[in-house]
């Protein structure tokens, strides 16, 4: 059962909504945050034919579609427990209807209000689609169209007419599909092979017990009968099937009629569903009886208004389908050359509606450009895809070419990716942990623990010393723990750094000490000891160095989980070289996943940024692969060569 359906604008205003069961606003908000803004969950989006992307949150499933040019998002929310197969179609239809009906209002600038009496349209769409869904679901041998849980890209089998017919005789005539080019506005149902075999009583019972309002339970029962149909239908005789076919046809007609008689007939409606369940033997008779009556009613005057609405709706949807078809390139020399000329003109002047074909070439160039900037291929491709998703269907602004449009879109995509969701003020965080809190005396001050991980030779110890230097300048007492018990010389190297640093910082007021236990011991235990030692000796910050490890070395990587458990670092930073090429994505992902459930990396330190000039693509690759922000950049050989990331600077270098 659909819980809620909302139509909202990208600026956040809900233009229209229909709520069956109240759903907290935070559900849709987190969809917007996670999918649209932070792009944490990558939607396998596919405009049009394929099934819609979806998102799950707190037991709800959300499916959505967008109308880019008008800045609209259509979201359907329902309980994850129920399978609704017609949501995709509903989203498509509602989008087509809504954009067509209110496009003039939606294009109005300087207003957020849209006067949209959309309820009727919506209700009828839902009813109609539920009906067809019920019908399709009862088809025997049909691969169940509940494809929701497979990734959208793989589910080419919509419940449309192109579903492979299991038996030649059973091929279903094309049902009234909105995007089918047959502009049949008539709703005369096409006979469908269908069994109205009852569900096994046990199943229906269970579901009835669960169902709340009568309508819902009725649908649940139908569902039950739908899912159980394939098993029971194997032994059907042709005659039986024929009769059922007839019944189904009539049933469809009758229901169509029910729209007209919505209120009066509601009791019949329920009645009908019970007979439907009661058994196949007496069902056809009952159906026929009601049927003939409603055939008569159908010609009556009572339903004129509603029928008009239906016709309007159908014609809009048919138009939308036709428009889609006609958007294929015009045939003939005259048509194509005229199109080319006007396309060229619009490219210069603007106002061109972007299609996949328009974007293909400039996007490819953009991708190459990004690759030249050392962005990993994977990240570049995904960036271009997201830009494409955002641009298809948009109109270019006046006096902007396609290239320019892509340029700005890519710039803002990069800005969005690189900008951290929350601020990265290390000093504030340290202050929060180490300073006594008058309001919350239970949270006793403790040392702030920061650890550094990374592949061999990327500059972990060097960057650790730089961070240490930075903290010392701020007058903190720092304990450096030598957690690299693996590579010979690692501890000595740190000792040199610590000696240098304590000399440098002697005047500034900070102090630093080294915590070491020699080689060969378990790094996780040493780290835990170091934290305990720091707490006992009133250190402010513990910096833990770790052994470098290849990100595909399963044994060493798995020890990170224990490390995270024992040392419980407040922050885990991963050091990566700016030079690293295509490997960066795998590195980032493996390290991000190495700390066990519930713990991720907190940030990246990108070292050796001074050596790559403007090829700072690694930044993008790492962030794009994990959603983890870049906290520091190493920009030289001195202790002071550590910088925060300036997003504007990075995007400018990348786009240059």
């Amino acid at each position, binding site marked *: 059962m659909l819980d809620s359906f909302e139509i909202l604008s*990208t600026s956040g205003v809900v233009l229209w909504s229909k709520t069956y069961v109240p759903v907290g606003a935070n559900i849709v908000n987190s969809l917007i945050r996670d999918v649209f803004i932070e792009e944490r969950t990558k939607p396998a989006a596919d405009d049009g034919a394929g099934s819609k992307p979806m998102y799950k949150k707190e037991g709800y499933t959300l499916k959505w579609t967008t109308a880019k040019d008008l800045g609209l998002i259509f979201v359907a929310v329902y309980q994850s427990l129920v399978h609704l197969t017609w949501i995709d179609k509903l989203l498509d239809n509602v989008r087509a209807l809504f954009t067509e009906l209110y496009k003039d209002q939606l294009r109005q600038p300087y207003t*957020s209000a849209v006067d949209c009496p959309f309820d009727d349209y919506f209700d009828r769409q839902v009813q109609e689609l539920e009906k067809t869904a019920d019908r399709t679901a009862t088809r025997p041998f049909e691969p169940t169209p509940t494809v929701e849980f497979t990734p959208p890209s793989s589910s080419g089998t919509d419940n449309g007419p192109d579903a492979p017919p299991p038996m030649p005789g059973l091929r279903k005539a094309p049902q009234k599909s909105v995007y089918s080019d047959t502009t049949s506005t008539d709703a005369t149902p096409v006979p469908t092979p269908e069994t109205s075999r009852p569900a096994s009583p046990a199943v229906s019972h269970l579901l009835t017990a669960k169902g709340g309002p009568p309508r819902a339970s009725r649908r649940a029962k139908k569902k039950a009968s739908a899912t159980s149909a394939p098993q029971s239908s194997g032994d059907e005789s042709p005659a039986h099937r024929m009769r059922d076919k007839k019944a189904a046809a009539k049933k469809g007609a009758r229901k169509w009629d029910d729209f007209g008689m919505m209120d009066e007939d509601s009791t019949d409606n329920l009645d009908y569903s019970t007979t439907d369940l009661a058994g196949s033997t007496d069902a056809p008779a009952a159906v026929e009886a009601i049927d003939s009556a409603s055939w008569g009613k159908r010609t009556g005057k009572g339903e004129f208004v509603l029928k008009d609405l239906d016709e309007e709706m159908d014609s809009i949807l048919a138009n939308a389908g036709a428009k889609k078809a006609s958007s294929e390139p015009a045939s003939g020399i005259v048509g194509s050359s005229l199109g080319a000329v006007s396309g060229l003109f619009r490219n210069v002047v603007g106002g061109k509606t972007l299609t996949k074909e328009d974007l293909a070439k400039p996007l490819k160039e953009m991708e190459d450009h990004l690759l030249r900037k050392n962005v990993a291929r994977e990240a570049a491709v995904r960036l271009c895809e997201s830009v494409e998703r955002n641009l298809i269907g948009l109109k270019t602004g006046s006096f902007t070419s396609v290239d320019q449009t892509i340029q700005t879109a890519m710039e803002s995509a990069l800005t969005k990716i690189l*900008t951290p969701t*929350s601020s990265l003020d290390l000093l504030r965080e340290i202050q929060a942990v180490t300073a006594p809190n008058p309001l919350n005396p239970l949270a006793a001050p403790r040392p702030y623990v920061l650890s550094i991980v990374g592949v061999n030779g990327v500059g972990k110890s060097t960057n650790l010393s730089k961070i240490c230097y930075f903290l010392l300048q701020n007058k903190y007492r720092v304990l450096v723990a030598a957690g690299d018990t693996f590579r010979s010389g690692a501890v000595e190297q740190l000792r040199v750094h610590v000696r240098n640093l304590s000399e440098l910082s002697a005047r500034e007021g900070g102090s630093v000490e080294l915590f070491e236990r020699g080689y060969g011991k378990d790094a996780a235990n040493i780290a835990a000891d170091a934290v305990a030692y720091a707490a006992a000796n009133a250190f402010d910050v513990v910096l833990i160095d770790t052994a470098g490890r290849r990100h595909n070395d399963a044994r060493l990587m798995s020890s990170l989980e224990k490390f995270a458990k024992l040392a419980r670092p407040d922050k885990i930073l991963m050091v990566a070289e700016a030079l690293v090429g295509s490997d960066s994505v795998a590195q980032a992902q493996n390290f991000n996943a190495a700390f066990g459930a519930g713990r991720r990396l907190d940030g990246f330190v990108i070292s050796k940024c001074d050596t790559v000039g403007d090829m700072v693509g690694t930044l993008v690759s790492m962030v794009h692969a994990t959603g983890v922000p870049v906290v520091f950049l190493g920009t030289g050989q001195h202790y002071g060569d550590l910088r*925060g990331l300036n997003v504007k600077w990075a995007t400018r270098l990348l786009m240059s």
Partner: protein
Amino acid sequence: MAWHDADSWLSRSFGPYLSTILLAAFVSVALPLLLHLYIYRKTAPTSLPAFLLIGPSGAGKTALLTLLERGNPSPTHTSQAPLSVEITLPSDTAAASNKYRSASDPTAQKNSRFLLIDTPGHGKLRHFASAQLVAPQNLKGIIYLVDAANLSSDSAGVSGSSSSGLTEAAEYLHDILLALQKRYTNTKTSKGPGETPVLIAANKMDLFTALPAPLVKAALEAEITRVRDTRAKGLLDSGIGMDEDGDREERDWLGDGGEGKFTFKQMEEVNVVVEVKGGNVVGGQGGEVGEWWEWISRQL
């Protein structure tokens, strides 16, 4: 009749014929007119005074915008794009410049209209707001909306010395004020960017956990002081020397010298007048936004 004949269209169009002259006259008059109409329709009524709505996500900016536009707030979700809306002052609050105008003066109507620009508050989307600050078009003021129910320190996280809501609000406000200050100090012309009034609108006063306006002000000032301290000590960022305005290596502090306690009064030196007023968008009849209306009308 070839193109070089005496009465071909080409010859005619260069000859001294009345029709040619008339046509040329018509084109030369109509073309600029049409062009003007075309371009004028495309561009915004820029002459309208504009107010910018800024604030952390969930503060109620979009809700406020719909309330001011329609009289009752519509349901909203997290914004992803800015939105400009034209709003007319309610008749009971007259614009300041209209005080001495008679009620029947037609310009009075015009002066009570303004644009309200809503911006997304999500951390990744704040560049919309900062872009508006850099290139203001007839910007009359900034409304910084905060969720007053999300500032109180007793709702603090386990480890924080202050709640994350307060920190976020203060950091964002700090950045905005810093941008305003930079804009002031960077303009060399005597004209300057003029006065930029900032209204800190403490929203959600209908909730019992909300702090009253004076407390909101105190909490924000204290938190901004802290933000300023750590920012001052923090690392330089990689964009140093990138902007046109400077190879200046030194950083900008908010307020004078960046020492001691920060107060909003310090901003008046750079022509930024900050006021804090409470209200609520939701709850009651059409919310409680009288003080904010009054502030807006004073700026017009």
